[in-house]
């Protein structure tokens, strides 16, 4: 069952903050976040692992609540380059990811 993302879309002005949420109905081993621009490959942003380990880019922050099976991605002081569709992928075992439907982010000048 795919994770549920919210909101579906968000419009920001440059410099504003936003939070994207991802929740699953099943126990998770890891949560992966990707950003995809139109017509391009999804780009890896971050992995959050059960137990608290995180791997990703310095300018991106996220949280993973294992008990609630939820993750949040924080876009801080947004830049124009942050525009795109953000996907969370959840893994309960060997790495097979199930992706949410995506959150479209538009950052305006």
């Amino acid at each position, binding site marked *: 069952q795919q994770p549920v993302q919210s909101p579906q879309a968000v419009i920001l002005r440059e410099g504003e903050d936003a939070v994207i949420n991802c929740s699953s109905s099943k126990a998770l081993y*890891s949560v992966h976040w990707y950003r995809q621009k139109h017509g391009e*490959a999804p*780009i890896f942003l971050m992995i959050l*692992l059960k137990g608290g380990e995180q*791997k990703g880019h310095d300018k991106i922050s996220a949280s993973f609540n294992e008990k609630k099976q939820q993750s949040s991605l924080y876009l801080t002081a947004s830049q124009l380059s942050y525009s795109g569709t953000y*996907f969370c992928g959840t893994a309960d075992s060997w*790495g*097979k*990811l199930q992706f949410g439907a*995506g959150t479209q982010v538009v950052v305006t000048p």
Partner: protein
Amino acid sequence: GAGVSQSPRYKVAKRGQDVALRCDPISGHVSLFWYQQALGQGPEFLTYFQNEAQLDKSGLPSDRFFAERPEGSVSTLKIQRTQQEDSAVYLCASSQLGGTFPSYEQYFGPGTRLTVT
């Protein structure tokens, strides 16, 4: 270094034709995944290889879909007798290590946009 590449980038097929989509993963990556992405949706898992072994093909929608990775590097996704519902972007991704390491990021290719008319 070179990323994941896919070819062709665009493919138009008439209903009933067979198509073959190619994926060149990052050199040395053990795992290779195929996904199908419908318009406005996230990628959906199709199949997974660890080296040349196809360990999971549970996401393939029908027996018209077939994937191979004979030498553990390049992979081909073949769709026989294409139908309109096969129209989608087909993404390939590779990952450094195999199976029991869901902590490793997947690197995606740009995808092949298949349109079946």
